[in-house]
């Protein structure tokens, strides 16, 4: 699948919802988010040059959809605890990156769980 660019103006919840929609077949195939990161375009598209680039891989039609949980990082010292807490709920870390959230850079941990 080609990368999907999500708007930089979204709230973190809206961004998570869009990523889940891609997983749920918005592009015509079911998919799994494998990476998400803030991206600046050298040449603006639709007058915008700030996006979040989502990388997805196609999955089978009957494969379970990965649940997503995006958590903003306010204090990097909390990261090990956050990761450990999520792992208790079987959410595995997908990414630890800067994202554009409401046009601001925000470090975010992204977790996924496939039942």
């Amino acid at each position, binding site marked *: 699948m*080609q990368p*999907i660019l999500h708007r930089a103006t979204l709230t973190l919840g809206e961004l998570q919802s869009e990523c*889940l929609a891609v997983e749920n077949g918005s592009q015509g195939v*079911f998919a799994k988010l494998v990476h998400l990161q803030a991206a600046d375009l050298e040449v603006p598209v639709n007058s915008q040059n700030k996006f979040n680039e989502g*990388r997805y891989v196609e999955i089978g039609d009957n494969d379970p959809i990965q649940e997503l949980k995006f958590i903003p990082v306010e204090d*990097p010292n909390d990261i090990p605890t956050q990761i450990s807490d999520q792992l208790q709920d079987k959410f595995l870390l997908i990414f630890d990156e800067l994202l554009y959230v409401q046009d601001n850079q925000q470090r975010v941990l992204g977790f996924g769980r496939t039942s």
Partner: protein
Amino acid sequence: MRYFVLSLTLVSVVLTTGCPKSLVKTRPPYNFNHTDALTPRINEYLANAQNAFDCSARGFRYQVNYAAGGKITCLDGLGGPASANPAGADEAKRIRNEMLEDAVGAIDGLYGQFTDDLNNGHSTTNFVADVVDLGTSAAIGITNGERALQVMGIALTAFRGSRKSFELNYFKEQSTPILIAKMDDNRSKQYAIILRNEDKPISNYGIKAAVKDAVDYFNAGTLVRAFSELSKSTAQQADASEKKVLKLRGVDDSQLFTTPEAVVDAINLIGVFKSHYSDKVLNSTDAAIKAKARGELLAVYTEITTGAKKDDFKPVLDEVRKNAALKAVMDKLDAGIPEQPSPAAPIAVTNAEIRDVIFKIYLTARSQKKDDLTVTLKDIFVDKATS
């Protein structure tokens, strides 16, 4: 000649047998399997892939001799009679990407086993030792007849000293979840790199670089890498300073996510229904649950095909019917089938088949960017599926 050393050595290749002895222009054999004969086979597979890649990149066809371990003969007038392939560059790119995906798939399987073992508290020190031992013993020269191709040597130098006691002790001091999380993070980053590189033409991303990426992907999921990343002093702060914003070029508007918010909500609600109608529910041993799910799916299908929006769905249904298997199911459904077949009677259409048709209709509507039909479908699910 550099030697080909792979941490991929946990992956092996079993070459297909029983096929015609020589076929023109098929892909290199890639049937991964777990056996004891690790290194020679992975090297053989990659050597064949590289031969096929090189041959195609130069614009020639090639033959695969399955009886001889998938050996590639390039039809370039040297290895065999010349046979030009005008689409050689595309074929080479396909071979390269297929090799990558084969490697990623095999590595994922092994990684899953590995993390399961970690979670279950099984011994891990053997794994670290295994990596080191394989790194030092897996060197194998690629000697191939027609052309002096060399598979890029990838040393496990960074890993050779890793069976140091302090690292094993370090592991013992870490919680397993944190180590796994670090490996997951490392792997996702490397996989993102691979996906980006797969888009590149062969002139910018050759098979040697692809092999290196596959090896990096494997290495990203090792404890050794997790050690080195986690043992950085003030790791979190260091991480923060390394976080970057991607710089992208060559992007077009087809990549923009433009689906309206209301449709996003509809899509995600349909996703909930998809999760609900799992095989576990559709094949439940509880007859009532199974029957209820079947009734709901039949009601959804009937509403799609005969309800108020049937004309809007028609182009989508026509597209789905192009799939012969799905058409057969739809024909049976359209002819009318019992709400619930008797236990003794053969099932004309299974619950899973009904579900598959419905979600193919949904995916087809999405691929045609039919936002209105997506919302309609969500409404139908909400109305008919009361589970």
